[in-house]
């Protein structure tokens, strides 16, 4: 007799929990306050940083694939000229700084063949699940210490 009772209680618990979850899900969104509390992040910062670094790994081989749609007009098909073939890249995951808009900035050092290293702050945006480079800002001073490779 105990077993059916346990099943009933378990089923009831599932219903209650489910109802709570359902009510929570269907509750009018306007009851949320405009604070940072309870707003789910798309991904945690370290995870995002890793995803960004992985995306940037293809910069030397296929830079055009990393051009954000907003930058397409300015890059105008010249992505390969921007990152010459054979360039060496270093992405500092620890420098990843989310911007609160779903993107962020990350420190990227590009060493083109025969050129000295050049450090950039790359503004990254997420487009249809893919990380893209919207713009870069060349750093006016060299990084304080060597960057790590992805």
């Amino acid at each position, binding site marked *: 007799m105990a077993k059916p009772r346990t099943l009933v209680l378990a089923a009831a618990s599932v219903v209650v929990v489910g109802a709570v979850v359902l009510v929570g899900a269907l509750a009018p969104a*306007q009851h949320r306050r405009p604070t*940072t509390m309870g707003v789910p992040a798309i991904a945690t910062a370290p995870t995002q940083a890793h995803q960004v670094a992985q995306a940037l790994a293809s910069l030397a081989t296929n*830079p055009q694939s990393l051009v954000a749609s907003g930058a397409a007009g300015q890059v105008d098909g010249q992505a390969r000229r921007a990152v010459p073939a054979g360039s060496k890249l270093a992405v500092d995951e620890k420098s990843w700084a989310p911007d609160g*808009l779903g993107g962020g900035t990350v420190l990227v050092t590009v060493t083109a063949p025969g050129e000295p290293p050049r450090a950039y702050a790359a*503004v990254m945006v997420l487009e249809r699940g893919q990380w893209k480079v919207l713009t*870069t800002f060349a750093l*006016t001073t060299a*990084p304080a210490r060597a960057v790590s490779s992805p």
Partner: protein
Amino acid sequence: MNATRHPGSAHRRRLGNSVAVTAVLLVGLALTVTPQRQGLAQAAANSRDSWAKACSTGRLGLGKDNVNLAPAPLGKNPDTNPDGTLVRISPDRRGKYVPVIMVHGWVGMDTHIDARDGAFSHFIDLTANRLGQVHTPRSLIGQLQRIPGAAVFTFDYRDYAARWIDDEHVGPALGKVIDCLYQASGEKVILVAHSMGGLIARYAATHPGVTGMDRSGEISTVVTFATPETGSIAAALAAGILDSAAVGGALVGNDIAATIHLILAVCGRLTSIDQVGTGTLCDGLPDYMRTFDSDAGAALRAGSPQLAALKPFPASITVDALAGRATVAIQDRGWFGLSWANTAVDVGDIVVTTGSALHGATMTRKVSCAYQLSVVSEFADQIGAQIGLRGKADVAELALGAFTGPCFHKNLMRDIELTNEATGAVNDDIAARQPVIANDLLSAPVPANCQHKAGTLINGRLLGIPTNAGVMELAWLGKPAAEQRDLLALGDLTGDGTGDAAAVLYCNAGGVSWPEMVSFYTHGARGPKLLGTVFLEDVNLPGRQPGENDFVYRLRYHDGAVVAEWTTQQEGDPAAVSTLDYTATLRWNGHKIVVSGLTGTTEQQTVTQFISAVARGDLSAANALAAPGVAAETANQLRQYPAAPYARTTCYGENAFDLPPTVGANPALANDGTVERLCLVPEASASTGWIVLGMHHTGFRHWQVTWSRLS
């Protein structure tokens, strides 16, 4: 009747006018009503406090919304005036208060307490003047409380701020507060709003209140700081949407987006939610961005259907929109090895573009700042940024997270330029409700006349006129107080329930006086506003020619209009001798001053009554119209000319060309010097002999038969 102003003589005047005397007299008039004003002030203060109770959260059922009358002075660190005294609330000239409701923005709050963490309570300490520094010991609320008649209320909806403006605790709640304060005070309210607060104000203004289908009858002015009227660029970026067309095209839009992403990323690393209120550029920005997924955040995106559904402000409401416009130049911007031109990027106030903040406003003002942003590496391999004034090398760049700029979204209410504009807008609104008083007219605008251009009086007189070129001034300058009152009429001339004024203006071009004018003034934002002017030489009965002079005897307010009495010449009169007294009603019809009921009085009526009385032997009646003995003498003369009473009496001025030669050539008759008019009573029709009556103008519409002689 005022015997001291004899038409045609006392008006020959006035270069010795004394402005000081006028000022003293006006002050004296003002002092006589001071006790009454003190009583009004106390009554107004009581009513102001009673509104706060009647329109409180509990009474209106607003839940967690809070409505409070902002106190003055605060207990600690109070707002102070420039002379160091405490800011205190005072009634306006009418002894009344006008509700001014402050509405905070998203991720904000609206209180006025010692902590000074409310959206409008921070001291005004920023300026866009690159060389200037500001240390005003007042907040915007304190600044507004200095305006006589401003009763500042705070509306705090922070607990519901994530909801869109149509939520019952947001826009409709503000509507209830507006309805309540409008009904309690009998005054249209003024709204001052930051950011989304401006959209809430727009919602309330465009929805039914107690006066009609919208609240245009309850709201007079709305001042907005950085309200995203067409949406927030940051909100759009947060949603992965960037309406490039809305921010200047794809290329420009990308530059703006990139710059904002960079600033937010750096700020996000430098600050945390625990640092809200530090007053820097980064202050609160990450909070904004992380909360854009709320209902309000989604609706704030440029082009959102919620924004599209919001109606524009009713046209009768003055909307003064204030915005920040920061242009940021960042060197070495590009795409890795490709470099873009180093053009400055207009990021608005980062949250709202300038165009969105100024959209649809009646008046606008923006504060502009130009910055140079340098992207640098910092310790621990972090990307940092430093920001400084662009093109000003002697100002050191500051770390972004320590930078305080007047052009950014949360800082606009600390900027001296914008807070002055907001204060001016509120002051103008309240000032326009004040009745025009005599003292206001000392600085009234005047029309062009007497070869002088239109201008504005200073201490009652138009300055800049060379000494020998005449004068343009208030006609009462230098006059005794009783006479001043005759040359001014105070009352509601426009039908708006507030007092206006009519004043007599006097001018000449360096010679004799020109005909006087009567100008109507209503209450303007910055003093009396000229409605219109009647040039009295243009007002004449049929068959009468304009006189060379027109002198106003008296203005009197009656039933929404002005009854004007003035005197001028008839044909044959010398200049400056006035023998024709006019009375007319001057009324403002919404477009111009309309003259009606014009009547004229000359010596003719008196002489006709006099002859008639003498002819019927009523010497008592005749004596009342004549100098002593003249009636009896005329009676004797009539015995010689028995047909005279039945002939037509004709009157002439001293300079009349058509005087009969026997009269005109006789100095004892024509140029006697004691009378202004000669009336000739013929011995019979077609006569060559006359009884000549010397007529003296003793006052407005009053004549005396001074002598009677035979010719």
